[in-house]
Structure formats: structure tokens, C-alpha cells
């Protein structure tokens, strides 16, 4: 399951025991076929991913607008950073690197990604450990935790915004009844709690995915290790820290990285749950707002490009770390 290993793994290919000439003829035929098989997929990806990405980057260096895509003029780095010196000698900075709104979105994105992934990892590990134990009704529990995962994000956002409603929401009612709060909270509307609301919904929806990935890692740990630990009288909690965690770490790391990259690009949940809150506006939401709603197409492109760069950097870091650290880990 670790992508880095899959590429390193040696793959069974063709017959290896044939006479040399036959083999090379066969190999050539197979290579030709492989080429033809790959072309449609590669062309599709180039049209739908490669070209649009290049165009987005290009637009970020122009002054394009929604209504004037083709007449756009080259603007250099103006969308990123620009300065004008006034007669008085004062320098005015502009461009997204000098834009507090942009930095607010960056901060929101990072805050959301780190907090949600941390919570999901902890809760996911708990759920995975529960599912790894043998008990009656385990299948039922696994079915139940798949439900949040199967519900479309937009739907779960609306379901929760009803539950978190300040006047008629069941969460406020429940918390008041339990004595956790003494007045009704406008979870999604108030700036203090908007991020908490987003985190609750995201954690609810994505913990199952995390739990299943961690569970897959847990199930690869041989049972006799636990037996040995039990015979030696090791305390279960110590067994968890010293045996389970180190052995499940490769699977855990892959899950964390995937979720982190995914959380960095979050859009739909925030767009639907807290549409107007500056406390939760992430890079994706901000960039789309500029691209489509505010008719600052070039500026939005620059923000999109920046997000791409951030995620690309994280991916490269992951692949690089993956080669060094996860070899022969979990497969």
C-alpha cells in the first residue's frame, strides 16, 4: 500500500526461461503493446491535468480577467509581489505576498490541516484498535463507521449545519442538557467557533478513512509478537507504545501524508458550512472567489499556483523521505 515501495518492487514480467532470441522478440512485442496501451491514458492526463496546470501558471503572470482571457497582457510577478514608490519616497507593496487576506487564508489552511489530521490520526488509531480486537458485532461497527465516509461532503456539511444551528440545533440542546454550555452558541456564524465547527464535521467524516488505513496496517502485525509480549508480562499499554506503534508507523505515515495533502486543498466543506467566515477561509476557497466571483482571474490563478507549489513541495518531501525511511516497511 505504500506507493513508494510499489515502484521499487520488482514486477513479474513475461517469461524468463525462453531462449534468448525468442525472448527479445517477445519483449519487443510487449514493449510496443505497452506503448500503445499507455498513450490514451497519458494523452487524457496531459489534456485534463498537464495543460490546464500550465495555463493556470501562465495566467498568474498576466492581467487576465474572466471576460478577457485571450487579450491578457504579460504582467510579470505583479500578481505575486509588486511595489510602487510614491513621490514622497514611501513604498507601497501590492500583490498576494503583501496581502493580509492571503496570509490569513494560508494560516487558516495550515491550522485546519494540522488540527484535523492530528485529531483524525488519534481518533482513527482508537477506532482501528477497537476494530482490530475480536468481539461480537465487529462487522456491524465497521459498517457503521463507513456511513460518514459514504455521505457526500456537501450533504454532511448541510446535515451538520442543521445540527449546529444556533436556535433549533440539536447540538446546542444536547450540550445545554448536559450542562456543557450555559447559552446557545452560533457555531458556524461566530468567528470563535467557526473553525471548531469545520473541524468537527471534517473529523467526523474522515476519521473512518484514517481508521481503515491504520487497521490495514495493524492487521499485518503478526499475532505471535503479542503472544510473546504477553508471556513476558509486558503491560498492554507498554506493548502498544513499544510494539504496535513502531510496527504500524509506516502505514500510519502514509495515511497521515495522504490526509495532510488532502486537507491542504479543502474547499467544499468550508464553502458550504461557513461561507462568509474569514476565520475559516482557506486558500482554495479564496482562490475560487477571486477567479470566478471577484473577476480577478489572474490574481486567483496566482493563489492557485502558490497552493500547487506548497502541495508539490510537500509531495516531493514525502517521496524523498519515503525513499529514505519507509523501505521494506509494511509490505
Amino acid at each position, binding site marked *: *500500500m505504500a*506507493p513508494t515501495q*510499489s*515502484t521499487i518492487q520488482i*514486477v*513479474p*514480467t513475461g*517469461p524468463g526461461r525462453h531462449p534468448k532470441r525468442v525472448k527479445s522478440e*517477445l519483449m519487443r512485442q510487449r*514493449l510496443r*503493446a*505497452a506503448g500503445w*496501451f*499507455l498513450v*490514451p*491514458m497519458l494523452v*487524457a*492526463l496531459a489534456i*485534463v491535468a498537464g495543460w*490546464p496546470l500550465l*495555463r*493556470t501558471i501562465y495566467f498568474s503572470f498576466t492581467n487576465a480577467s474572466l471576460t478577457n482571457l485571450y487579450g491578457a497582457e504579460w504582467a510579470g510577478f505583479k500578481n505575486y509581489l509588486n511595489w510602487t514608490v510614491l513621490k514622497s519616497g514611501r513604498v507601497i507593496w501590492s500583490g498576494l505576498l503583501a496581502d493580509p487576506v492571503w496570509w490569513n487564508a494560508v494560516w487558516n489552511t495550515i491550522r485546519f490541516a494540522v488540527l484535523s489530521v492530528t485529531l483524525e490520526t488519534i481518533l482513527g488509531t482508537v477506532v482501528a484498535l*477497537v476494530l482490530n*480486537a475480536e*468481539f461480537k458485532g465487529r462487522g456491524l*461497527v*465497521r459498517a457503521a463507521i*463507513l456511513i*460518514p*465516509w*459514504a*455521505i*457526500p*461532503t*456537501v*450533504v*454532511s456539511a*448541510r*446535515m*451538520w449545519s*442543521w*445540527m449546529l444551528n444556533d436556535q*433549533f440545533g440539536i447540538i446546542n*440542546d444536547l450540550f445545554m442538557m448536559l450542562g456543557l454550555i450555559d447559552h446557545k452558541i452560533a457555531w458556524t456564524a461566530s468567528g470563535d467557533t467557526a473553525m471548531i465547527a469545520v473541524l468537527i464535521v471534517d473529523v467526523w467524516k474522515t476519521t473512518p*478513512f484514517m481508521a*481503515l488505513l491504520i487497521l*490495514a496496517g495493524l492487521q499485518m502485525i503478526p499475532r505471535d509478537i503479542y503472544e510473546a509480549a504477553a508471556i513476558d508480562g509486558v503491560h498492554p499499554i507498554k506493548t502498544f507504545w513499544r510494539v504496535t506503534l513502531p510496527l504500524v508507523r509506516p502505514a500510519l505515515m502514509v495515511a497521515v501524508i495522504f490526509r495532510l495533502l488532502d486537507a491542504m*486543498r479543502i474547499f*467544499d466543506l468550508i*464553502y*458550504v458550512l461557513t461561507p462568509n467566515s474569514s476565520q475559516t477561509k482557506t*486558500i*482554495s476557497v479564496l*482562490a*475560487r472567489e477571486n*477567479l470566478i466571483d471577484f473577476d480577478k482571474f489572474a490574481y*486567483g490563478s496566482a493563489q*492557485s499556483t502558490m497552493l500547487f507549489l506548497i*502541495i508539490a513541495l510537500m*509531495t516531493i518531501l514525502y517521496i524523498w523521505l519515503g525513499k529514505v525511511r519507509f523501505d521494506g516497511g509494511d509490505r
Partner: protein
Amino acid sequence: MLWTYTKTTSFYLLVAVIVLVSVFPFYYAILTSFKSGTALFEITYLPTHFSLDNYISVLTTGSFVRNFGNSILVATSVVVLALFLAVTAAFALARVSFRGRGLLLMTILAVSMFPQIAVLAGLFELVRAFGLFNTPFALIFSYTIFTLPFTVWVLTTFMRDLPVEIEEAAIVDGASPWVIITKVFMPLMWPALVTTGLLAFIAAWNEFLFALTFTSSSETRTVPVAIALLSGASQYEIPWGRIMAASVIVTVPLVVLVLIFQRKIVQGLTAGGVKG
């Protein structure tokens, strides 16, 4: 003795909490969807009302039925297209060794990590240039960006694990790579195709950003966009009953599918290591 008893009890308590938290929001959405009028604003934990008003209203007014059809059309077409392109590509990536294969697999994985917003501007231009704006084809076209890498990746993982002997036997019998794929591997691949197809279907069914951006009229929207934009007469009057009814209609098919194919989905998710 007492200690074991407490341990078992707390374990089952934890299990109960997990199940309750997972299921409750969906249960509450169903409960709300059956309430109408002022009953909607009375907080109840157990079902008290049963009225189909919200469902009738959602299905007869507005374009929800049309949106549902759009979603089915888009998601099905995307799955067929992605599987068709991915099966042959996966054969090449899994069974033939050639230079640069590792790099190619890496690139495909990288594409699946693309933030969708990064291609939005470029895709917007393409969609308009091809005259696809505000049609389902815009979505079928653009959804390839996340369904294709995912299907290629999972099918490659699966095909790599098929035994070499089968392929050798076919080669000895003079089968070409195309025949090996269609006649030898395909019958073995059905479980994997179903799993991958299902995961791609769910991803396409749930997609929001492209659907929101590339459609502009209520008839061409897909279900997630329709639900997100469902509003009442004024900005402050949110039709919660109808929203919940629509949400239930959209989610029930998915939940049923997921519960039927539970085991397969778990396998597919862990094999792909990619969010479905």
C-alpha cells in the same frame, strides 16, 4: 474479576459511542426530513412525526429530479471512461518492465495529489473553448483528472499480484498482449474493476468544486451543487426540511452500495491508499 468486568464494559461503551457518533447525524437527517411545518423546529431525539411533504416538495418543485439524472449520467460516464483507459494502461505498468516506469507511476500518483483549484483556471478556459460550459460533458471531461490516476493506480497494484504462470501459459499459446488483457486477465479482474469503479463513482458523485464552477443553470447542476444552493424565499429562510429530504435521497443509494460492497471497498481503499 471486577477489573475484567469493568474492562469489558468500558470497551463496549467505547464501541457504542463510535457507532452512535457515526450513525447519529444521518439518523437525525432522516428524522428531520419527515417533519414539516412547525414540527421542524421542535428538537426531538426520537421519531415523532411522519410526513412526506418535504420529499414531495423536493421531487415536484424545482429541478432536483433533473439534477439527480445529471449526477447519474456524469458519474457513470466518468467511471466507464476511466476504467476503459485504466485497464490497458495498468497492464502496461504492472506486467511490462520498461525504462521510466517508476517515474511514470510517480507522476500518476502526483497527479492524483493535484489540488483541484490549481487546474481550475486552465480547465475553465478549456471548457469554454470546447463549448462545453454548462453541459454535463464539462464535468465528465474534468472529473478524469481525479478518477483516472486513482483507477490506474489501484488496477496496477491489483494486476501486479496476478500469477505469472497464467500469463506465461497464454504467451506460449501465442496470445498477444491485447488477447491476454481481454481474454485472460479480464475474467480475473472483475472484483477489482467493481471496487475501483465503485470508488470512482462515489468520488464523481460527491465532487463539488468543478460542478459548481462549470455549470451555471439549475437544470445542468449535479446533486451536490443543487443541495448546496437550495434556498428558500429569502436568504434567512433556509428550507431545512427540503434540504434534509434531498440529502437523504442522495445518500441512501450510496449508503446501500457501501454496505453491500463493504469488504471490497475496504480492500480498494487500502490498496489505493488514496482518498475515494
